[in-house]
């Protein structure tokens, strides 16, 4: 065995061991065991611990993962197996040492919950699988053996045959799709797209009435983030302006609807629709006011100034200075609901409203992206100097992008305030801006499916996985890093449109372009 193998696999093992300890220190193993227990049909009462055997299942899965990831992709089989075994051994040793420490603390009744909140005595006992010192040995043995098993699995499943099999399945699916496409009449292929849209519309129409108000709430959140994401994408993805203060523009929309529609502080009752329009206009004005002085700033400087702008708005909303106008830290309550045929909006109506707003936003976005204006924005993002020398008034178009993006943010804000019947400074923190930024980047810049996917993944999933509630932001942070390491172009990267055929009517292309050069590969 050469040194390199030992070094890398012991590093892997140590890393996994430390991560395991970390998970225990934040009580993640309890949560995971509880979830496994529920999945296997044994409910765990609130406040009580799951049975130790469910923790063992968690450990087994984790230890197999250790071996799997320790086994390198290339090299001799025996080396891979050794790597798995050795990484498992090191991980087991690390965890066992930690177990020994816990055992010692249990024996001496050392209570350090003041410093590490998760380390209560029951939790320590649970970690030792309710077996005392024997648990330490079980941990060690599990990791070592299953590390070997994991690497064996890796050897088996990553082999050539499996790869061939996967390839075969892929080709079969592609062939099947081609067959179906060829078999169907041309009209179906041509209009099938619209059929799918129609189906989607029907589903979107039916769903809100079926799945209850909680899902409507989550869905609404996702939808609003899609709109916000589109707004930010116009600034960031199309025109390349690094905007971190979108929460401020969101706040302009929200506060417009709130203040024009609530008994306190102004007693104005304009109704939802006019005030929504005012909200959009206010956001546009906000974008303009922000944009005018800072047009010459580039990159990170622009980012930090917009961040500052967002913070200024939030602090002002939170301060005593504006309490009379904006309601101060307590925000604006009892926002009047819009009505439909005389009845105030319920959650289903709001879901519809958000669907419509989302659809309109997506439609507008596509129209904008493939227009003279959209291309001007894209050129500014690519190379502002050359864009200007090509005849584009860079400052004007940058400002325009800020204003248009702001309009979307204002729209989302207005709907948000009305739906919650409340808005306050805490709805418009830096976190909102960062969330939107993450949605757009994780989804994929300039990609609508990406933004939808991103807001579902980052806003919808965490809401739905209530079990993970405590760990939501932790997982969110880790996910962001992981995404950037693995898929930096986002979940659904954008592709550029094919335009040449559109511009050459009646002409069939005489050159078959090579695959790898195409824009949408």
């Amino acid at each position: 065995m050469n040194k390199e193998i030992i070094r890398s696999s012991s590093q892997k093992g140590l890393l996994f061991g430390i991560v395991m300890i970390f998970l225990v220190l934040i009580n993640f193993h309890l949560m995971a065991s509880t979830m496994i227990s529920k999945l296997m049909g044994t409910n765990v009462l609130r406040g009580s611990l799951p049975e130790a055997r469910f923790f063992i299942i968690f450990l087994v899965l984790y230890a197999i993962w250790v071996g799997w990831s320790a086994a390198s992709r290339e090299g001799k089989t025996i080396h891979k197996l050794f790597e798995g075994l050795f990484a498992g051994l090191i991980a087991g040793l690390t965890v066992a040492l930690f177990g020994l420490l816990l055992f010692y603390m249990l024996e001496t009744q050392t209570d350090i919950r003041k410093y590490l909140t998760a380390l209560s005595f029951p939790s320590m006992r649970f970690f030792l699988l309710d077996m005392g010192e024997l648990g330490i040995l079980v941990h060690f043995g599990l990791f070592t053996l299953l590390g070997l098993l994991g690497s064996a699995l890796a050897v088996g499943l990553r082999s050539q045959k499996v790869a061939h099999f996967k390839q075969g399945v892929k080709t079969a699916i592609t062939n099947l799709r081609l067959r179906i496409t060829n078999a169907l009449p041309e009209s179906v292929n041509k209009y099938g797209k619209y059929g799918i849209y129609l189906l989607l519309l029907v589903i979107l129409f039916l769903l809100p009435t079926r799945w209850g108000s909680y899902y409507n709430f989550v869905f609404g959140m996702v939808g609003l983030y899609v709109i916000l994401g589109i707004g930010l994408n116009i600034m960031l993805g199309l025109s390349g302006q690094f905007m971190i203060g979108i929460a401020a523009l969101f706040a302009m929309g929200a506060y417009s609807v709130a203040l024009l529609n609530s008994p306190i502080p102004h007693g104005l009752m304009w109704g939802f629709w006019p005030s929504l329009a005012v909200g959009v206009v206010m956001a546009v004005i906000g974008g303009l006011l922000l944009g005018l002085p800072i047009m010459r700033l580039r990159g990170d400087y622009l980012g930090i100034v917009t961040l500052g702008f967002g913070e200024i708005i939030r602090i002002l909303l939170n301060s005593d200075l504006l309490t009379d106008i904006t309601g101060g830290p307590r925000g604006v309550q009892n926002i009047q609901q819009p009505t439909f045929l005389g009845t105030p909006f319920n959650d289903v109506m709001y879901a519809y409203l958000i669907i419509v707003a989302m659809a309109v936003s997506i439609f507008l976005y596509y129209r904008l992206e493939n227009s003279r204006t959209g291309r001007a924005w894209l050129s500014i993002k690519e190379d502002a100097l050359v864009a200007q020398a090509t005849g584009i008034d860079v400052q004007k178009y940058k400002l325009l992008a800020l204003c248009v993006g702001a309009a979307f943010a204002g729209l989302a804000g207005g709907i948000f305030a009305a739906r919650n019947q409340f808005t306050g400074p805490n709805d418009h923190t830096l976190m909102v801006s960062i969330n939107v930024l993450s949605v757009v980047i994780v989804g994929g810049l300039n990609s609508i499916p990406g933004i939808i996917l991103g807001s579902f993944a980052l806003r919808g999933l965490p809401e739905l996985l209530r079990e993970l509630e405590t760990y939501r932001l932790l997982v969110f942070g880790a996910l962001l890093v992981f995404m950037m390491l693995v898929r930096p172009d986002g979940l659904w990267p954008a592709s550029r449109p094919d335009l040449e055929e559109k511009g050459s009517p009646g002409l069939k292309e005489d050159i078959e372009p090579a695959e790898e050069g195409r824009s949408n590969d």
Partner: protein
Amino acid sequence: MESNLKSPPKLTRRNYSKIIRPIFGLLVFGSILWRLYEVLIAQQAYSAEIWVRLLISGLIIGGVYALIAIGYTLVYGILFMINFAHGEIMMIGTFAGYFLFEATKSINVAAEGSPPLSFSDAYPLISVILAFLVGMTVAATAGFFLEKIAYRPLRKAPRLVPLISAIGASFFLQNAAQLLFSPQVRDYTNPQAIARGSGWSLIINGSRVVITYTGALTFILSILLMIGLYVMVQKTKLGKAMRAVASDKNTAALMGIDVDAIISRTFIISGALAGAAGVMWGLHNGLVHFFVGFLPGIKAFTAAVLGGIGNIPGAMLGGMFLGLIESLGPTALGISYQLKDVIAFVIMIVILIFRPSGILGEVLSEEKV
């Protein structure tokens, strides 16, 4: 594509953008000057000792900001990325110092039979030094691993990608701290010898102004660290290598400099400075919780931008400047203290609009075509 030799073009154009900035500037500076006049000359609302008090607290907080800002600037200078998780590195340093103090408090060094005496009470100076050392070491380690895990694989990616990774790392560290140490706000250790609030008294206009020991410690230590850093960057081989990597990574690599190692060391150094700032923050403000690094982090980044990001003296100056503005600004302008951050951000925006590269930042000539 028809023939072009037609009539000459008509040349008229109005340029609005050139008018807007001066008007904006006049408005902002005018209103600031007017408020200053009202508060300082027309009303004379505050006496000298209040100003001295504010000045002292501004310098202290400015020193902390400057230390953190240097970390931002060092990393930005080399990688052109905002290390968004830098505030969390500071938080880690604060916690490390806290745990060390707690440990020294629990060690009993009293002789047999005499009343218990903790290590931290018996040797206050040593325990404070130890706390700083441990805080700096732990934060530096955290910085090292942060770079290795979250940034290094992204070195060639577009600039937004490492930024998002940094935001993710920031979330992760914050919430990990919350889950590990619980969300409660803890009292930071208050060593008897330099207890908060105690210090040297000055008598100004017949009233007492206290220069606290913790404040003096913070200020002096931050100045010393800054001088040390400056000397290191200017004089040592490592500093030279850092500057070389900052100006051109490829050429530096050709000259035999291990670029990865230099970047790692940069993170270690900036982490150590943030750790020191964290312990100072804890000692001076007396609080520690998982969110403790967030606001100072953002403020310090603002300070780094103010001074001209990538420029070390700029970060020091920017930090001090921001501390002073925060402390003196609300009073000088006669605004509620709640709005101190607004003043800081507004000043930053105004400065950036008129000097887009910061106070000491190099004035870039028009971009080369």
